[in-house]
């Protein structure tokens, strides 16, 4: 068994009744990797996660984990942990009993059980909360219990469903650090599902961007952020100005436009708002909206190309609503897109 293919999904097809949610998905995950499944709702990321956990019957294809085909292994024998988005703590049990639940089913009793439970509770910083019920804990604390409850089982893979989305901004940073620490200390392979690109970028070793039941792009956070391969990924990670190319010209609003500089032979180009040059260039636009965002100021322009979003340093003089502005979409700054949908 190679560590490069610790968890492999092979031609995985998943369906709800006759509705195919994921089709022919191939994905190899290394041992100890922290993977983000990123995509909008309905892209199949949660479905894929549930299939890895065994909560969903696989229609065709295989799931292999640590050298064994677990496609048809029942979920209680997979050694896969899952931290639910809602945490799914057992409301009638204390924190201690929640963490002990799986260990007891493994047959642990007495001092061995107690030691594991205590260290599990301590590892997520909840000493002193052992006798509380889940209802008496904050959302962040509940999530820590859920994390401890899964981690004490020493799973081969830990799955996390939208681990940060229910937390407020401050807790989010804390939990992010916590997850990275747990992953580093235990070396557990982690896969988390998110619709939030900033979460994926901040946490993951590798991001798998999904769209309509298929993988759109796999890459490091830097790859995904700076070099999106498709218009979908570009749009998803904040390239607000995405255009197709046709014969080296920009195709927009039914017309073709010349760009300055060398235009690469690709399907499309994408610019983040801050990549748009404002105040000079071959194009003209009219300011339709503007908003101050601290460090910078955002503009929305009405142009022959369609709406363009631009961003300039806040120290620059402000342009009024309705002002006519020249702008440029510099080809050399754009992200080249291999596919345009």
């Amino acid at each position: 068994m190679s560590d490069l293919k610790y968890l492999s999904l092979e031609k995985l097809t998943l369906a709800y009744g006759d509705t195919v949610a994921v089709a022919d998905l191939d994905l190899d995950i290394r041992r100890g990797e922290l993977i983000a499944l990123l995509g909008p709702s309905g892209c199949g990321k949660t479905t894929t996660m549930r299939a890895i956990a065994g909560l969903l019957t696989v229609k065709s294809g295989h799931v292999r984990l640590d050298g064994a085909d677990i496609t048809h292994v029942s979920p209680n024998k997979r050694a896969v942990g899952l931290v639910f988005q809602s945490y799914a703590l057992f409301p009638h049990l204390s924190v201690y009993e929640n963490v002990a639940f799986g260990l007891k089913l493994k047959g642990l009793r007495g001092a061995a059980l107690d030691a594991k439970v205590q260290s599990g509770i301590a590892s997520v910083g909840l000493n002193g909360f052992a006798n509380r019920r889940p209802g008496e804990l904050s959302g962040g604390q509940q999530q820590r219990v859920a994390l401890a409850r899964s981690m004490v089982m020493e799973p081969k893979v830990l799955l996390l469903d939208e681990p940060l989305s229910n937390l407020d901004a401050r807790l989010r940073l804390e939990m992010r650090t916590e997850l990275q620490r747990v992953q580093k200390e235990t070396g557990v392979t982690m896969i988390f599902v998110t619709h939030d690109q900033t979460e994926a970028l901040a946490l993951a070793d590798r991001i798998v961007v999904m769209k309509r039941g298929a993988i759109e792009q796999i890459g490091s956070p830097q790859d995904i952020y700076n070099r999106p391969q498709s218009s979908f990924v570009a749009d998803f990670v904040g390239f607000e100005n995405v255009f197709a190319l046709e014969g080296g010209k920009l195709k927009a609003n039914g017309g073709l436009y010349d760009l300055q500089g060398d235009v690469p032979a690709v399907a499309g180009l994408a610019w983040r708002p801050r990549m748009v040059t404002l105040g000079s260039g071959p194009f003209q636009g009219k300011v339709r909206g503007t908003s101050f965002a601290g460090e910078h100021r955002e503009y929305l322009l009405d142009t022959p190309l369609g709406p363009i979003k631009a961003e300039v340093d806040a120290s620059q003089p402000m342009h009024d609503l309705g002002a006519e502005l020249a702008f440029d979409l510099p080809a050399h700054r754009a992200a080249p897109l291999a596919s345009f949908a």
Partner: protein
Amino acid sequence: MTARNFFIPVTLFLVIAFLIGPFLIIVAASFSAGETLAFPPQGFSLRWIAKVFTVESFRASFAMSLFLAIGGTAVALMLGIPASYALSRYKLPGAEVIRTVVSAPIIVPGIIVGLALLRYIVVPFGVGITPALFLAHTALVLPYAVRVVSASLDNLRSDIEEAAVLLGSSRLGAFFRVVMPNIRGGILSAFILGFVTSFNQVPVSLFLSGPGVRTLPVDMIAYMEIVFDPSVAALSSLLAFLSIGIVFAAERFLGFSRYV
């Protein structure tokens, strides 16, 4: 005070008097010292309350009612809990139809249920009186069991079962380890509601009772046809206080009203 302000408290008083009045009259009548059921009671004594416990047929029919209420409700729950679980957790085809059919005994008048059971099940299949009563009471309690248990299942997240399975439990184990403990209050409430419903049931039992086998309310009616002394009032008062006591205890310890 204006006429309008006066109207509401008076109406309230009349409604309460209408609802509670008969009950108070019966309670008062049961302490009568007279020979016949009458209001206002003549004198005060506990003799009719004492007499209740000496009537042989009351003892037998009380035992029968208790057996039907406890046994019928228990069986209804054994059928109703899995049924509620299936209705609440799976997208069953025709789930609404099943819900309606299961609820039918609440909606259909007891006389019709009793007659139908007698004419089409008890007589053609030669079912004995006790099994027939048991069957009828189970069917009558089933809707309450399904409704109350469904309500508590609907309030319980289903992902805790998946969490239990991923921690090594079987599906069935997850039901007993994490579902049952969390719907225990609902099950107990369903039991109490079913018990009281069954115990106070008259029309269906009336059709299915036979020689020597009667439920307590049916026996009380039969008794009153022959003897018109205050012992029936005394028995009614005792039963009413029993019901009140059970519901009060349930509310106190379980928060009964959350489920019903």
